[in-house]
């Protein structure tokens, strides 16, 4: 995971590197890797659970970034969440295809539709700490339900089977867990708003 100092590098630098990639400068991808490679790899490893697959996913994500660099919208906000979303989906696909699940999702993010503005990097780092803490404070069954869905790509029925719980119980756990995280998230948003005036 990048250090605070590392991640608080100006987003200007990200945009500059993206522009260089768009112009076909392959060295820029290496510099970009220095900044986010460990983060992407960590997420891929957490989901796939093995280093070989995590490396493959990481490589895919960076190739995808390279291919999409020219279409990336500089005004769109944080690149980090874009990368994280691709990584999560790509890694879940890897897991599912390994499990023999039939459907393989194409990882493709909206290019013509607007997305909500993202918090900047410093706010993201702060949010990460808060989310980690909030997750740790969740009742373990709620945390487990969210993690099996998001980090393992299981269906809700599969979670019910695996945890020997009724489906309705899984639904309640997901809802309560997400509501708790949301409360933290909103508190966070409020704090950063009052901090910036």
């Amino acid at each position, binding site marked *: 995971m990048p250090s605070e100092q590392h991640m608080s590098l100006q987003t200007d630098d990200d945009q500059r590197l993206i522009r260089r990639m768009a112009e076909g400068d392959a060295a820029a991808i290496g510099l970009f890797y220095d900044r986010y490679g460990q983060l992407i790899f960590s997420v891929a490893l957490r989901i796939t659970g093995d280093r070989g697959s995590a490396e493959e996913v990481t490589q895919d994500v960076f190739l995808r970034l390279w291919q999409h660099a020219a279409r990336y919208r500089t005004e769109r906000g944080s690149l980090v969440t874009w990368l994280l979303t691709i990584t999560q989906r790509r890694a879940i696909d890897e897991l599912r295809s390994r499990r023999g699940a039939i459907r393989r999702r194409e990882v493709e993010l909206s290019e013509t*539709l607007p997305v909500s503005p993202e918090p900047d990097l410093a706010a993201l780092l702060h949010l990460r700490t808060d989310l980690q803490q909030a997750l740790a404070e969740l009742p373990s069954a709620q945390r487990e339900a969210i993690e099996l869905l998001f980090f393992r790509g299981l269906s809700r029925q599969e979670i019910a089977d695996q945890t020997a719980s009724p489906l309705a119980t899984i639904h309640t756990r997901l809802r309560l867990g997400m509501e708790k995280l949301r409360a933290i998230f909103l508190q966070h948003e409020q704090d950063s708003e009052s901090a910036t005036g």
Partner: protein
Amino acid sequence: MEQGDNVVMCPHPYCDEIAVGLAALALGAELTPEEQRRVLTSLATCARCRRRLDDFAAIARTLPLVVPEAAPPPALRERIVAAVQRTAASQPDPPPVTRRRSARLRWMVSRPALAIVLALMLLFGVAQQRELARQQEHISQQQAQIEQQKTQAARNAVIVLAAFGNDDALEGLLESTDGTNQASGRFFISPGAPAVALYVKHLPIPPAGMQYQAWIVSDGRTISAGTFGVNADGRAWRLTQPTEPLIVVERVFITLEPQEGSLQPSGPEYLTGFPSR
């Protein structure tokens, strides 16, 4: 954060139940058809549900940040740079030419409407996005076609927003006209804009050379809302902007017509529905 949304009362007695579907949707789970229907209905009518999806989606975007730190092998960097250099011969995509239009679209979009677009993208946009991605591989020959599809995607978003997001939007259920088929559906209409969003399921696959056509009875006249096919499950989404204003929407119905569509309904009627408000 939007002030005021917090005090909007949810018109649904089952808002908490919908939250399950919203959480599942944001975290990447598949929804059942019944869940899809209820989620979209709530998003169209309930500010609290829209806020909730918006927040859940933002959490899902940042959730990967909480994973424990792990160091990649040092050789990975070189492998990635080398792989990129191999593809560098085939240049990356040309710069976007849709930028101006997209900026305008963003300006028109309100924050609550984003939740609906987000849900529609998650639920129904995957196939279209996949098609776009595949075609972009053959970018040189098909640039024009891609641009057209992008324009269509942007236009669809505008129609959805108009049909779902306006205060004067109408909605209603579509039911089997004579009770002999299993088909059903739902429509959203913005009379002022005018824009129509239509969702049907369990329609029989039309015979060769035939298509379904949607019709709106407005102020005593029958106006076409376009033709459409269905997928293998008999499902379809149809988004249109009728050229004539829809003064008073009296009824919506769907008939089977020749491939090229008809000026006035001529084939058998499958579905019918009335605005509920």
